[in-house]
């Protein structure tokens, strides 16, 4: 009785409608929490403003400034410079460390231990991690004392801390881990039999890495790159502390506007940043099929 009632009604929902019904809740959430606020931000970016107030009057100067000023150019150049340098360091480093962990460690126990060791610094809170750079890189810090003790320098190096160098050091320290994690994840999926076959066919280790492992790990590296990109493009905390508030990036500039309650320029800069980050992510996704990565 029961089954005879339910089965026809189930059949009555066409598959297409079923799909629509399935995506509706998420679509609504996305619409309400992402698209609508973004729309508002977009609208605000065209309005006039002063002293924490936004006036309902069209004011295009904000966009003119954001799209044409030397400041925007300088901010993006600085941010991309950080991104390129950090990527050039973290990608090979992440790949190499992951390769070591995946293929040169026989003991699973040791591998787990080492992977945990990589994560340990991140168990402390961000502010504490940043404050602890000062005793290391500061004027009176360990590095400066060592350099002077060894007679390499006569006086403390100022550029070790509160500088672009310091920002880069902190980025590399923070962002090598996701590179390792994503590369390791891809490597773990390579069946040992494939490596075995290559070895049996007489391939050298270098050949295996170059022709076999690297192409298979590329999607993992692409995802790691996406993480590094979004982290650096959106960062305000590291650059502020490590740069001693003397380094201006895209994210910092938005925060400065927000702290001064100047919403339209912050909105315009955010929209531009979103467009830039999305373009980078979309082009990176051509190297990685995220759905395939998640499925396997």
């Amino acid at each position, binding site marked *: 009785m029961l089954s005879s009632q339910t089965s026809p009604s189930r059949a009555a929902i066409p598959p297409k409608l079923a799909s629509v019904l399935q995506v509706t809740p998420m679509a609504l959430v996305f619409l309400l929490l992402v698209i609508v606020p973004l729309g508002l931000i977009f609208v605000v970016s065209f309005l006039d*403003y002063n*002293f*924490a*107030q936004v006036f309902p009057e069209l004011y295009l100067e904000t966009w003119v400034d954001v799209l044409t000023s030397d*400041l925007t150019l300088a901010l993006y150049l600085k941010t991309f410079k950080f991104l390129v340098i950090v990527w050039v360091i973290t990608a090979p480093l992440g790949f190499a460390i992951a390769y070591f962990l995946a293929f040169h460690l026989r003991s699973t126990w040791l591998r787990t231990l080492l992977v945990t060791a990589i994560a340990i610094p991140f168990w402390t809170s961000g502010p504490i991690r940043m*404050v602890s750079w*000062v005793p290391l890189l500061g004027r009176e810090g360990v590095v400066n004392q060592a350099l002077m003790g060894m007679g390499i320098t006569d006086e403390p190096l100022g550029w070790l801390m*509160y500088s672009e160098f310091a920002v880069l050091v902190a980025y590399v320290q923070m962002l090598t881990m996701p590179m390792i994690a994503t590369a390791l994840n891809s490597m773990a999926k390579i069946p040992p039999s494939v490596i075995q076959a290559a070895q049996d066919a007489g391939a050298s280790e270098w050949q295996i890495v170059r022709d076999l492992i690297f192409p298979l790990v590329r999607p993992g590296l692409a995802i790691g790159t996406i993480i590094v990109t979004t982290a650096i493009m959106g960062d305000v905390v590291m650059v502020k502390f490590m740069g001693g508030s*003397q380094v201006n990036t895209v994210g910092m500039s938005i925060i400065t506007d927000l702290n001064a309650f100047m919403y339209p320029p912050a909105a315009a800069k955010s929209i531009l940043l979103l467009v830039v980050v999305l373009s980078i992510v979309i082009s990176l996704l051509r190297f990685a099929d995220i759905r395939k990565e998640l499925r396997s």
Partner: protein
Amino acid sequence: MTKSDLPAAKAPRRDARGISRRGLLKSGAAAAAASAFPAPMLWAQNIKDITITHLGQSYSTIPEIEAKANEELGFKVDMQTAPDPTTHVNRLLTQPKTIDVTDMPNTNLKYFTGRGVLMPVNVSDYKYWDKTLSLFVNGTYPDGTEASKQGMAPIKAQYWTDETAQDYSPTPTDHLVGVPLYFNADTLGIRPDLIGRPIESWAELLNPEFSGRVALQDGVSIGVADAAMALEATGEITYGDKGNMTREEIDKTIEVLTALKREGHFRSFWTNFDQSVQLMASGEVLLQSMWSPAVTEVRTRGIDCKYNGMKEGYRGWYIMMSAMNHLEGLQRDCAIEYMNWMNSGWAGAFISRQGFYNSVPENVMPFMSENEWGYWYDGKPASEDILNPYGKVMEKAGVSRDGGSIWERMGNIGIWNTVMDEDRYLVRRWQDFIAA
């Protein structure tokens, strides 16, 4: 200036009034409110379920003050701490009804004209207006001379023009924007052990001798004010009003600062208290914009740090307490009672031990020992060790406060913390400076 210039100093110490007031407070809110409310017993019954939410920042929402308020007032006080100035102002502007009273720097008041968020406080509702320092009542010092109006001087936003609370009146009215709470005179924090000579001018902040060893506060309200004091002191720029610059003055200021930054003159810009302490204590900087409690913190770590005035004057600041406009009935009465309590002496003495001044010194005096009062307000050498509000020794006997008495310090204000009329332009140009 001498002690006799201070109205509070004229009052006999621990007078009958002070004692009776304390007794009054101890006997409960019913009695305390008796004068203002005709039916005290009813009042005590009615207010016991009321909660007054006070939004402030870490420097003002002090648990000890909250506990004392709850002990002495018949209603509940709930202090909430905004994590930073931005969140604080945003919450006041966007969720005013979740708050009853707030305390904030008067530089914020530029954001509150025409908003209808703050409630005008009637002069007759505030018990201590006649005992409040003239600096806040009419913008003059006790000797009658006019205080500096460069920057956001207290008198610029102390009164609403009328009860609609839309705009500020430069001359006294019956409607207070808020109750004056704390104020102080800031100057440069100095590491005398590393500099080895006296620092007496703001110009030293730009002296090439200290290249790479000076810091400013990050941002335009204090950082630019300090830089302007220095630029004027070197004679490099002459301002009409350095607390409210014209576009040309802003351009010139940013230009000079940018050149200095490119030479690596600034070690860092600090954002919060801890960073400023760390920069100073670690020896990263020799000279920087600093706040009084931060100097105290460096000293309690056993590191010498001076905070003497410069010949061009101090940078003054001022924090007031305001109520929100949605208040009515008993809630409103309790909010006003809380604001009155804040300046009745105990809380004022507490914050005075951190190096700030309270706007009603006469009330604070009975709550401080002779030694404390002499050290903090009169600039006298401490007759015994000076303790901070938490009972920790922060200054040994024999030492006197840098800069001297309240009016030696407050009487010499070169600029007040500021938000300029050309704020929009300044913030834009400041970004160019940071990007350079």
